[in-house]
């Protein structure tokens, strides 16, 4: 089995589905000859031709609208939004149109579009490149929102996303693109959307996280193990819909839970997860369910990134509050 980075696993998934289904089209800004600014689409234009892998004029709203139209002609578009901070330019196409196509046609039409986009902090990008805007997407009925945390998950989830008949927002954390390698099978495989993954088993505390915060939570769990705490880490993988079953099963086992997100605290995914836990498992809880998040400012200009982003130290600190409540 090959040792791949997340970006390579993503390219593999795109190749797999382009081979499997001639209706899969890849397009966006600089995705053709240049292979994307992160090289996620490297080599695809050469292999599948300009007809199926192409550069668009520079307009995110155009890319979104084009995807909807191509889908209406039976294609399965996999457009790239170059950085997810640019999503505001294409919000109407995503939230106002794509997400509602099935609903407003009385269930007769659909938008099988997978929007891929890099996001996430810690890599010193300029403004509007690194924001965690998944909450905005998760708040739109009609969308599915997927955020892989490992190369293996990225490949299986992206294949599932492309095959899904509803619109999927597939968010790729920039810091994870090349930070580590993992064994990724060459053959195709899928990971179902809406299924969380227990990345580490434990019995004293459940940490629920996604994206780059999974790695930070794993580090925190290792730290806590040194103090004889057994910590379970649940990687949501899909934040809309949430895998309630896995979350609740874990919380019922440990009796203590916390949620970690890179996004700001206000109106976030973590708040949704906490609400689901208290709705369904409050009597099994030994302590309040706490959150570790970024503060409620705009994503910082790059110089302050490191003090702004949540990290394993913050997670350990909060975990101890939950563990010793």
């Amino acid at each position, binding site marked *: 089995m090959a040792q791949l980075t997340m970006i390579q696993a993503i390219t593999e998934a795109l190749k797999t589905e382009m081979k499997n289904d001639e209706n899969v089209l890849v397009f966006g800004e*600089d995705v053709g000859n*240049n292979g994307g*600014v992160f090289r996620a689409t490297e080599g695809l234009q050469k292999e599948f031709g300009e007809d199926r892998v192409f550069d668009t004029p520079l307009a995110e709203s155009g890319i979104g609208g084009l995807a909807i139209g191509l889908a209406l002609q039976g294609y399965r578009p996999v457009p790239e939004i170059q950085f997810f901070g640019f999503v505001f330019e294409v919000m109407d196409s995503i939230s106002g149109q794509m997400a509602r196509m099935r609903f407003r046609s009385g269930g007769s039409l659909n938008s099988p579009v997978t929007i891929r986009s890099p996001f996430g902090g810690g890599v*010193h*990008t300029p403004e509007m490149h690194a924001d965690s805007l998944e909450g905005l997407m998760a708040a739109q009925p009609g969308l599915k929102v997927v955020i892989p945390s490992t190369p293996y998950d990225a490949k299986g989830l992206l294949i599932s996303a492309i095959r899904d008949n509803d619109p999927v927002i597939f968010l790729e954390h920039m810091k994870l693109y090349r930070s580590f390698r993992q064994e990724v099978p060459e053959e195709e495989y899928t990971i179902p959307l809406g299924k969380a993954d227990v990345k580490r088993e434990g019995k004293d505390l459940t940490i629920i996280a996604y994206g780059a915060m999974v790695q930070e939570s794993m580090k925190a769990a290792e730290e806590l193990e040194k103090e004889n705490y057994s910590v379970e880490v649940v990687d949501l993988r899909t934040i809309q819909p949430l895998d309630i079953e896995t979350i609740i099963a874990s919380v019922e086992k440990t009796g203590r839970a916390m949620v970690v997100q890179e996004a700001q605290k206000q109106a976030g995914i973590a708040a949704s997860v906490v609400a689901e836990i208290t709705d369904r498992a409050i009597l099994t809880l030994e302590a309040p369910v706490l959150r570790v998040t970024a503060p409620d400012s705009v994503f910082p200009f*790059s*110089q302050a*990134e490191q*003090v702004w982003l949540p990290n394993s130290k913050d997670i350990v600190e909060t975990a101890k509050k939950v563990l010793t409540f």
Partner: protein
Amino acid sequence: MAAKKSQQFDPVETLNAIEEKFEMVQILNEEGEIVNEEADPKLSDEDLQELMTRMVYTRILDQRSISLNRQGRLGFYAPTAGQEASQLASHFALTKEDFILPGYRDVPQLIWHGWPLHQAFLFSRGHFMGNQMAEGLNILPPQIIIGAQIIQAAGVALGMQKRKKDAVAVTYTGDGGSSQGDFYEGLNFAGAFRAPAIFIVQNNQYAISTPRELQTSAKTIAQKAVSAGIPGVLVDGMDPLAVYAVTRDARERAVKGDGPTLIETLCYRYGPHTMAGDDPTRYRTSDIDSEWEKKDPLVRFRKYLEAKGIWDEAKENEVIEKAKEEIKAAIKKADGAPKQKVSDLLEIMYEDVPFNVQEQLDIYKAKESK
């Protein structure tokens, strides 16, 4: 069966006729010779020297910024070499009362409009103090979202019109930016209100890797003005005199109440898109590079000024030394800025601090004082 051609109206012919009208304005050719005497803006010797000074200074600033970036002493940087005439000669036609809405490559115009150099460096490093604008400095921080500033320029211009100011709003974008919806909305709104705006598209041939031909089927970007019912002009963006002249004319029309103008400057960026990993050899050949280098704005302007006897090597070296010194001093000043804290960021979120932000401010301030 072929469609029958209408006797009255042939849309293809109309299109061709319009496209042919958009010929490139040039005043100073590659050899530094005046080729359009009538259009020569007849700048004074002092003005010519000042414009050359700014272009040379900016070329040095670009070289230094690239090397500081490579040393890890600057952050985000979008190289400007090749675009000096487009940027600085257009800016030369403005007054301090004019308001600039820039894209991220337009740092030079902001500096010559009065943005202190050390603040530009702080902006590059991602420090919030870089973007703190002094009162009366009529600029926005460089816009990161492609084209978002263009429609805002229509708003600034309409405001100036309502306030009866003798000033214009000037916005810059690139060939890629002309594909954004905001571009069309900006042109159309400013046209509909006859607002005093100048829209400058620096067509440097590539939007990151995407060549101009893939942006639009239109022969020129300048002709897009026609759809908004405003004047458009295509200009040699490597020719400082032509860029100056068309911008000055656009400004005169705007302050007279004759509405906005779209200017397309044909130019080239010698460097990568930004210093964050773009590799131009993946999408451009060195032949294309050297073809454009022959058109270099500094080379032709130097020849012109030398022939007039108002520029020489000593003068140029003086400018280069001054630039280097000022850049050094500005970096030192930027180094002295206080370390950015989370509490600084929370404090600039709202005028009246809400509960959630106050609670976090208290937590971070306590942590930061440790």
